[in-house]
């Protein structure tokens, strides 16, 4: 292998400790254009050293078979090959193998560093400290800085944030042009919940190295804080830096999924698969999206491909089985297959039992399904198992007890549209009646974006698609889309959040359209914010509520407006509150105060009912002009 190539590879940082930090922060493969070029050049190079470098580059690129080249280089006693192979095993989490691999290299700085990493990975901080102290006191800045960085990670993990910051400051002084100390500092500050400090550190990292790695790191922070737009911007920049890498594409697809923009996530998964057809995360991610978007057969195809790419993986078998069930492609033989797959994997054995329950639920054998879900939730199981088994067990048991109420095919040929709300906290607030109505549908439109709801609907129905009803109001486009399916002799379902007739513009449109076209439209009651909010008016009082009032804020302007103070009252706003004049708003406030009673306190709910409300004097409303969002709600407790 020629000297210029060796020099270039070293300059690319392939031999740097920093490579470890990129791996440990999920930075994905290194800037692949440089490494791909190196790999091409190495293809023609001969000898054990070239093979070692090839293995190293393949490991950095996240390509398979890196281990094969490195193992051959180790056998040929190529310098550094052992350490590089140990680093590969580190990345794979095979910490026990690392120490055995190192041999005499364990006494060299790089070897000590890798050994310390393995100790930390295995939770042995004290053993790691011994090696790190030696490397830290090295004359070599690269080595000292790396040891400081690793130690900082270890200190941060046990909550010693101040010490971690000091160590990373030292690393940054030793390596002023390196981005990795700042990336690690961002991690430390994020763990310490100092968002501003985290973003400052990440900005410093990007200033030193604007790469896929640093952009992904900042994108993750934005995503964790719920700023999906900025997360998307950084994810897109990461892709631009590393267009031949799957990691940024997978991440951006994840962000799009978080935004419920499934149609934008799908192309990213497709692109990742074009780069690497055996990319299991891409297959799994796309399978989930296919299901949400109403394509269970395509979801199953991706799940099968993921299974082929993960031979011997019980999780892959279970995933494939899950999609088989959704796609109505499951038989009892599947139970034996999944049970066999989890043999020897006690921690996930519950999943095979749970899937058996799902298969039975899909087959409408509710009683059996309930018994199987009870089994899958039996301790000792992880919390996830207990929760999911309890949830689906409740559904199966309830449906079994009321299966005589599942509608049969109606005698009349008239087209039917069933509008089912799954309540204010779907799917937990779904009623048995709504679930039975969904069972009776030939096609279901799902107006809910959560993937777990898509999972539930695919167990109760066989055909459907998502709608994406515009949050701003009734949308005739969706009315037309839905009514294209409402045909004689069929029953179509529309599933939505809350109660469809509480501030439900689309439900009202569907009811009107149904009257026009001669379809039977039925709406089923559901738990709405009315019901959940009113409960909050009670604590501390005796007696019971004997009534309830619910109003749109506009009704306050009515001449006949009156409100009984002895029962809870809920008041919703609507979009027009942003259009009324100051004088009109003042009149609203005056009438509200008259009705409620001056000085009385009311609950003010913001955009999200799950956030605790503010308890404020009714007069506080006077200060809200121009700031009320239509989604705000007032709860006036009884006096």
């Amino acid at each position, binding site marked *: 292998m020629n000297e210029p190539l060796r020099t270039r590879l070293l300059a690319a940082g392939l031999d740097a400790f920093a490579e470890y930090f990129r791996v440990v922060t999920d930075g994905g493969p290194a800037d692949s254009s440089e490494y791909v070029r190196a790999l091409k050049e190495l293809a023609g190079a001969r000898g054990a050293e070239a093979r070692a470098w090839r293995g190293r580059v393949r490991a950095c690129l996240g390509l398979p078979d890196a281990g094969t080249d490195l193992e051959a280089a180790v056998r040929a006693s190529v310098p550094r090959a052992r350490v590089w192979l140990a680093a590969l095993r580190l990345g794979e989490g095979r910490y026990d193998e690392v120490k055995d691999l190192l041999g005499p290299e364990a006494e060299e700085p790089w070897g000590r560093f890798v050994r310390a990493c393995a100790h930390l990975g295995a939770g042995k901080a004290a053993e790691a400290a011994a090696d790190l102290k030696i490397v830290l006191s090295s004359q070599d800045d690269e080595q000292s800085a790396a040891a400081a960085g690793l130690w900082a990670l270890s200190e941060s993990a046990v909550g010693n944030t101040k010490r971690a910051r000091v160590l990373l400051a030292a690393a940054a002084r030793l390596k002023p042009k390196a981005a990795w100390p700042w990336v690690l500092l961002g991690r430390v500050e994020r763990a310490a919940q100092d968002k501003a400090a985290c973003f400052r550190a990440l900005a410093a990292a990007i200033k030193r190295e604007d790469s896929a790695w640093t952009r992904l790191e900042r994108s993750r922070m934005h995503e964790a804080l719920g700023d999906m737009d900025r997360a998307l911007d950084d994810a897109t920049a990461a892709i631009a830096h590393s267009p031949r890498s799957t990691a940024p594409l997978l991440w951006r697809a994840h962000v799009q999924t978080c*935004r419920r*923009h499934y149609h934008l996530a799908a192309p990213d998964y497709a692109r990742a698969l074009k780069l690497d057809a055996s990319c299991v995360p891409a297959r799994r991610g796309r399978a989930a999206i296919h299901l949400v978007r109403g394509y269970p057969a395509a979801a199953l195809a991706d799940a099968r491909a993921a299974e082929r790419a993960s031979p011997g993986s019980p999780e892959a078998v279970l995933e494939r089985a899950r999609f088989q069930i959704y796609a109505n492609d499951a038989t009892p033989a599947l139970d034996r297959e999944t049970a066999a797959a989890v043999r020897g994997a006690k921690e996930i054995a519950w999943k095979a039992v749970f899937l058996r329950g799902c298969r039975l639920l899909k087959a409408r054998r509710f009683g059996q399904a309930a018994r199987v879900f009870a089994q899958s939730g039996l301790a000792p199981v992880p919390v996830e198992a207990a929760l999911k088994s*309890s949830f689906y*067990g409740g559904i199966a048991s*309830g449906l*079994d007890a*009321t299966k005589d*109420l599942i509608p049969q095919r109606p005698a009349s040929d008239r087209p039917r549209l069933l509008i089912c709300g799954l*309540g*204010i*906290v779907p799917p*937990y607030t779904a*009623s*048995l*009646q709504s*679930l039975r109505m969904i069972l009776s549908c030939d096609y279901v439109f799902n107006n809910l974006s959560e993937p777990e709801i898509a999972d539930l609907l695919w167990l109760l129905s066989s055909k459907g698609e998502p709608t*994406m009803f515009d*949050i*701003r*109001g*009734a949308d005739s486009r969706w009315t037309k889309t839905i009514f294209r399916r409402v045909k004689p002799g069929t029953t179509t379902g529309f599933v939505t*959040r*809350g*109660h*469809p*007739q*509480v*501030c*439900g*513009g689309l*439900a009202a449109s569907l009811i009107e359209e149904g009257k026009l076209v001669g379809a039977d439209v039925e*709406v089923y*009651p559901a*738990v709405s914010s*009315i*019901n*959940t909010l009113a*409960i909050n008016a*009670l604590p*501390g009082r*005796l*007696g*019971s509520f*004997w*009534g*309830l009032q*619910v*109003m*749109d804020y506009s*009704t306050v*302007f009515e*001449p*006949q407006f009156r409100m009984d103070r002895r029962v809870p009252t809920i008041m*919703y706003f*609507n*979009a*027009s509150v942003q259009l009324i004049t100051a004088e*009109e708003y003042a009149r609203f406030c005056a009438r509200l105060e008259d009705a409620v009673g001056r000085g009385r306190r009311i609950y003010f709910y913001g955009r999200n*009912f799950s956030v605790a409300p503010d308890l404020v004097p009714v007069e506080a409303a006077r200060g809200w002009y121009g700031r009320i969002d239509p*989604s705000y709600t007032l709860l006036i407790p009884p006096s």
Partner: protein
Amino acid sequence: MSETVRLLGLGLEPRDHATVEVLQALAECDEVRAQGFGRQDLEFLKRQCRRGALKSVAQDAPPKPLARALVAAARRGRRVSLATPIHPFYYGPAGAAVVAECAAKKVLWKSFGSISPMGAAISKAGVTLGTNVFGLQSFEAEALADKAVEPNPVWPLILYFVRAPDAAARSRLGRALARFYPKSHPALWCAGARVGEKTDLADALRTCSSARTGDTLYLPEAKATASTLGRPDRHHVVIKGAVAPPLVEGE
């Protein structure tokens, strides 16, 4: 879940209105005191509960001893709940008694939303709050008369029954409603044995002598509203809690 008393509402028709989270709670509890249910509903509840967990409680059971028993059981580490039709805070005084006893003994309580008479009524009547009605009022039938409620005539009125009113109670109810609604005022049964039946107020008052818990009557507004101020543009109605989707034409 220990040291927590659950308050579970089964709506107007438990076999229809039980929610998944209520079914889960029933299955998890060591003791479920079910107040005010008939035989068929008790059979349904029993199937959702652990063996031996369900205990039926009379509709008129004194609330404070019931609450004390529940809270004492919770303090012993048992998972307990009070289940009623509609919701414990609306069905009778037991729910509030439990809350008061929990506060006194520093025990947590938890409740879930349930399907209400108002929710059932608007489904059957086909009206949408915020689109074609802008206010709703719902009262327990006897309380409307006894508490001298003055309904708002521009809002639909929902009356729900916790028990069948005797003759005197029906008479008081009739007089209270007569001040605002003519005898011929349309009425719609929204839940119960006569669900879906359209009638008028006079007939409804006659036949409510056989009303059962959860039977619900819907009376449309008595007067049209004169105001348009603050009414939304039909295309600007908010869905709370929904995630804003992209505005794309299909996929």
